[in-house]
């Protein structure tokens, strides 16, 4: 080695600026968030992996559990069943939701607001509500059983139908966002060049929505693939991965096999996640500041067709939710249709209203603490440049929860927090662990919402504040928070509703004192009391609707005061004339 090459390898001490208060606070926060994710995401998942290579007594046995899994045809079959159901459901949902989103964004049909409102209803209920409603409509005593031509609703048909129902609004939201961003100049150019409508659709509309479609497909695939509630209620003897994990852990107390299947469940979700991330990176903004927003033109043929289609979907959604409500209110379906409230007396089934109150508490805590934690977290990731390397790590952590199915997260919490030697073992079997689990479970979407709104804020705000010697936390309080308030409300409502409806994340973590409404609905159904299950699921819907209404009213009121600056029309007066 020559003297010169040695010199090249010596790293000169890097210049580093001395830290001011903002820097130090920022660094401390960054470190705290990383610790949070290590404790409540990374370490639990690590424990899950360790569990999968141990025997019942905790001895290392390598990949023996995995071999056992592969040798068990019934378990192995579940994998393909889950894959099949997820793929078929995804294809159906993408087609249905794309058409619906197209009708809402690209046609001149009336009642768009109403259609949109109805289409989002499934978001307000746990996924099992769809399954329960299907049992009423198409089950053994169902009104429309004839439509199945002798097939049973308990099995793949039921799972697919229910999955399509509850994932439809998720797909609709992503697709209508990507369809609403479009430059009308492109269509005008196409028209001037004498392009047919179909060719314009295939060469402008579809490519423009391409990334939205890909993203939707992966999101829906993961949701269906990892969902637990639907196959539990309507799956019959059709085994899927999610129900297998439950059976192994709760039924057979075989935690090791539960861990193995969890990792099998995690794997496709991870792949879907990475492909989606990759395709997002390739996405370039099709809209520039010079684009002219697309305004649909009237077309009798297309509009009528789409109006019919939207009406059809809306009727189906209303039929589903309506039937669940009806079933909860009649004495004995389908023999005695007289009105009763007795199904709401859960004490009869050995489960009180306690679980309902617990759910509300969970949702409330999750919304409050989750919103604070997540929004500050997104600010740290997006705006604080105190340490690039730590920031990168935190960024990765914030995206991870999206790829971890709730069931897997819940199981990993059991392994990690139930361990006797864990110093934070005390949170096990409390409301706290349910809240933390739910926050982590729904972290990514809320985080990305926060990041998106923060990205829209001028990146020089921080520089201006520093030059005026205002510490960043003061600016956060005075500017960032007020400007982002509408988004912060959106995050809180998202967390609240999801905490009310989630099943998969909490099914392993609730205890006698912390039963939850969504879980109770599953147990009621398990006991054969479908009407009570429907009643419980409907309670969740009521609360979600109520909270939505309060949220809307509250938001409007508070926004009128804090967002006054938003509503004024910009007045681009010419300075020169005024001077």
């Amino acid at each position, binding site marked *: 080695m020559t003297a010169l090459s040695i010199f090249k390898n010596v790293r*000169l001490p*890097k*210049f*580093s*600026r*001395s*830290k*001011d*208060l*903002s*820097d130090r606070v920022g660094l401390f926060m960054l470190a705290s968030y990383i610790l949070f994710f290590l404790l409540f995401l990374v370490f639990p998942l690590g424990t899950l992996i360790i569990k999968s290579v141990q025997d019942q007594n905790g001895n290392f046995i390598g990949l023996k559990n995995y071999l056992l899994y592969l040798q068990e045809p019934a378990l192995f079959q579940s994998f393909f069943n889950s894959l099949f159901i997820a793929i078929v459901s995804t294809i159906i949902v993408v087609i249905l939701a794309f058409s619906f989103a197209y009708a809402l964004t690209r046609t001149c049909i009336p009642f768009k607001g109403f259609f949109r409102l109805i289409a989002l209803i499934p978001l307000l209920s746990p996924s099992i509500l769809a399954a329960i409603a299907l049992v009423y409509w198409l089950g053994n005593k169902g009104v429309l059983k004839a439509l199945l031509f002798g097939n049973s609703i308990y099995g793949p048909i039921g799972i697919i139908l229910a999955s399509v129902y509850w994932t439809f609004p998720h797909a609709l939201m992503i697709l209508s966002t990507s369809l609403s961003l479009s430059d009308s100049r492109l269509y005008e150019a196409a028209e001037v060049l004498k392009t047919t409508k179909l060719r314009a659709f295939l060469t402008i509309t579809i490519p423009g929505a391409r990334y939205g479609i890909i993203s939707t497909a992966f999101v829906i695939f993961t949701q269906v693939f990892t969902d637990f509630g639907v196959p539990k209620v309507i799956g019959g003897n059709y085994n899927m991965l999610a129900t297998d994990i439950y059976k192994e852990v709760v039924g057979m107390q075989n935690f090791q096999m539960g861990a193995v299947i969890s990792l099998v469940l995690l794997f496709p979700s991870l792949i879907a996640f990475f492909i989606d991330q990759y395709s997002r990176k390739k996405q370039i903004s099709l809209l520039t500041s010079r684009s002219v927003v697309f305004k649909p033109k009237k077309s009798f043929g297309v509009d009528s067709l789409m109006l019919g289609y939207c009406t059809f979907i809306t009727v189906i959604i209303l039929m589903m939710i309506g039937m669940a409500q009806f079933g909860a209110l009649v004495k004995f379906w389908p023999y005695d249709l007289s009105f009763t409230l007795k199904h709401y007396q859960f004490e009869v089934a050995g489960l009180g209203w306690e679980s309902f109150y617990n759910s509300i508490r969970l949702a409330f805590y999750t919304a409050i603490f989750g919103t604070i934690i997540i929004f500050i977290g997104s600010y740290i990731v997006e705006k604080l440049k105190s340490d690039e390397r730590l920031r990168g790590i935190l960024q990765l952590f914030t995206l991870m929860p999206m790829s971890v199915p709730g069931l897997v997260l819940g199981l990993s919490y059991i392994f990690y927090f139930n361990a006797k030697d864990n110093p934070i073992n005390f949170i096990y079997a409390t409301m706290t662990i349910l809240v933390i689990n739910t926050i982590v479970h729904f972290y990514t979407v809320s985080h990305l919402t926060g990041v998106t709104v923060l990205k829209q804020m*001028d990146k*020089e*705000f921080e*520089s*201006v*504040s*520093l*030059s*005026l*010697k*205002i*510490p960043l936390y003061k600016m956060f309080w*005075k*500017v960032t928070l*007020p*400007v982002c308030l509408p988004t912060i409300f959106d995050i809180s409502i998202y967390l609240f509703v999801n905490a009310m409806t989630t099943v998969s994340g909490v099914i392993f973590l609730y205890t006698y004192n912390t039963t939850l409404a969504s879980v109770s609905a599953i147990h009621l159904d398990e006991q054969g009391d479908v009407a009570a299950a429907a009643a419980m699921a409907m309670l969740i819907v009521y609360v979600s609707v109520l909270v939505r209404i309060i949220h809307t009213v509250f938001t409007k009121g508070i926004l009128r005061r*804090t*967002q*006054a*600056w*938003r509503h*004024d*029309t*910009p*007045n*681009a*007066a*010419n*300075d*020169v004339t*005024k*001077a």
Partner: protein
Amino acid sequence: MSEKSRHIFLSVENLSKNFGSFRAIQDISIDIEEGEFVCFLGPSGCGKTTLLRCIAGLETQSSGSITQKDVEISLLPPSARDFGIVFQSYALFPNLTVFSNISYGLINHKWGKDKITSRVNELLDMVGLKSHEAKYPGQLSGGEQQRVALARALATSPGLLLLDEPLSALDAKVRIYLRKQIKDLHRKLGITTIMVTHDQEEAQSMADRIFVMKDGKIIQSGSPKEIYEKANSPFIADFIGITNFIDARVLSKNKVACHAFEVECNTEDMSADLPVRLAIRPESIYLNRAASDVDNCVDAIIIENEFLGSFQRIYVESTSLSNELLMIDVANNSLTEMDLTPGSQIHITLPPDQIRVYPCDCSFHFQKRKAT
């Protein structure tokens, strides 16, 4: 350049900044005098904004030092330095009124309410925005917003004002108006000001001194007039204003050959046979009615004639000088009854003292300018 009589306010020494393997600025040393208005001028990506951000502490240099008022500030965080800054994007807080935006930095001073109000009013008056104090930034035009940003930056009476392309987002007329307003403010307050811009006209009209930057280095500095008249490279001659370039070869002292014509010009001590590039501004070339005995008079044909308001730009072809068209600017009031329609035969003169001679730099390619 640096007279010892005036006080050096800001001094940058051997400053470099790397982003990974990209060297954004390389070994820059400059001194800025108290009360001076300087411009960092250069094409995008030349490192001018990085240099400004290093001075502000918003970026940390890889090496080198910065001294402000004899205090080394190289490693101080932005909040410990003394400057106000205005960005191209205004960066006004959208949820705060004009008043609250301007008083934003005054809060730290623990002033009484009355004192803050009177200071804000003073600033509003200064930037000509009285009666706008209760409005939100969204209700103002771009130019008005930028004036609010300026008032906010000046509110705490900083010793140094940094302007990062402050006028680039504005319409042409507003830009010219604000140029003057900023210049007036500077004259009135005497605050040392550094502006970054890619607009040579802006730099020329505002700065006391211009630092022309390219590829992370300062390639020339001086007053606007010096830089325009004595550009030290073809790059600057081309970047600042408009210039005709003519390829040539040195014949003997003060004589070069272009195609079929010998041109008199100041070759200083360039050796014979050296390939050179001549540069002459369009307004420096004369039109002659008839052939003349003066130096560098050559015949040409008018190809194209552009009316540009107060003057006309004439594109002529003179095959004995160059293959490319030459531009000549003629003020409208000096236009004679000479026939300037395309196709007319004329004579042009290139005064020797107006021609700058550069040794041919093969790495630099000129934009081809041809009448279309």
